[in-house]
């Protein structure tokens, strides 16, 4: 139970992917203009993060490490992620066209989202500040991925809310666009810094 809480708090708040680790910034800045698209992107990223971790973690721990092929991790991981994204896209398209309409357009962008590769790399690496090495297993890894994705979605939604309000404000020309988005983002980061003291 303590591990569960530690993982949830770490993944969502203290090690939030966007505000603390700065992973997945491209979709964060690019797809956060509207809340609806932010939610769609967030859910899609979370889905891929969970599935990718569920596939890469056992392959790495139980196949690649015992065979001594752990140095191929980057190639294998990125290939798995790319294939997964393709598969999910096809499956969603078949099963639920309406969901595909809502989510499908974000899926191709996710392959090169560092949050996905980032979480796969993280759970096989040193997690000792959150969970002891000995207790790390696939369940915790997937759980971490799930909550890291939810933390990502949370910040996406906050950001989109702020940017929707920004639309009503006149911003000076040189600050318009990326600069003002980043300054907005920095305020969210500052708010999240508080959680690192938990």
């Amino acid at each position, binding site marked *: 139970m303590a591990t569960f809480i530690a993982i949830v708090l770490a993944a969502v708040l203290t090690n939030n992917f966007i505000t603390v680790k700065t*992973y997945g910034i491209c979709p964060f800045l690019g797809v956060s203009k509207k809340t609806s698209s932010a939610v769609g992107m967030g859910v899609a990223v979370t889905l891929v993060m969970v599935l990718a971790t569920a596939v890469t973690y056992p392959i790495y721990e139980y196949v690649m490490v015992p065979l001594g092929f752990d140095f191929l991790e*980057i190639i294998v991981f990125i290939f798995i992620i*790319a294939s997964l994204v393709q598969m999910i896209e096809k499956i969603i398209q078949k099963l639920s066209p309406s969901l595909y309409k809502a989510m499908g357009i974000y899926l191709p962008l996710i392959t090169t989202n560092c949050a996905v590769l980032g979480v796969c*790399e993280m759970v096989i690496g040193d997690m000792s500040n959150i969970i002891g090495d000995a207790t790390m297993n696939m369940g915790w890894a997937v759980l971490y991925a799930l909550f890291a994705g939810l933390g990502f979605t949370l910040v996406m939604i906050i950001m989109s809310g702020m940017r929707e309000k920004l639309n009503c404000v006149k911003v000076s020309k*040189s600050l318009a666009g990326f600069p003002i988005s980043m300054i907005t983002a*920095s305020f969210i*980061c500052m708010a999240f810094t508080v959680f690192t003291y938990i």
Partner: protein
Amino acid sequence: MKNKYAKITLDGLIFNNPTFMLVLGTCPTLGLISSASSALGMGLTVVVILTLSNMLISALRKVIPNEVRIPSYIVIIATLVTLARMILNKLVPDLYDSLGGFLALIVVNCIILGRAEAFANKHNVLESAVDGLANGFGFTFALTVMGIICEFLGKGSLFGVQIMSFKISALATPAGAFIIYGLSIAVFTYIIDTFMRSRRIRGNKVARENLLDSKTVDAQPVKEA
């Protein structure tokens, strides 16, 4: 002929600077500019990987079928990143540690795949190499400048050497990185805009057109990813 390379170089370094103008590769930028030496180290690593990947992809552009080009590029880039990781781990372990997870994430850095898609698969090896170097150094330049500002204000040090005891610690956190990155983009675009306008006022029509052209040649916006 010579002019072509100058244009590619200027594009990569300034007018299409991947960090300031196209806002690509943001994750390592925000994650590493709190330390100037990590920022510089990341920049130089990207220079090497980007140049090599551009050259390889350009050399193989006639061999690789269009349908599987993206997976092929990814494999090539992933191989180069893995190589870089091995070499850094062996020879420069301090840099390896300070880059942390961002080293592996170079593989999904939009700049590298972006240059492969937008430039290397349409140009010859030499041009691609120059483009890789130009964009890589454009990225390095941007990261190092912001790294110096961020580290100086946030930690009171430069490249790890303590200079002053006054510091604004918040600027060494991701929050500070966002602010400094945002303001740097604003300042950089302002300077470029002013520069272009002054060219226009002086009536140097040819130069202006050259510069304006160059800005649109291969600035086809790489998708946010």
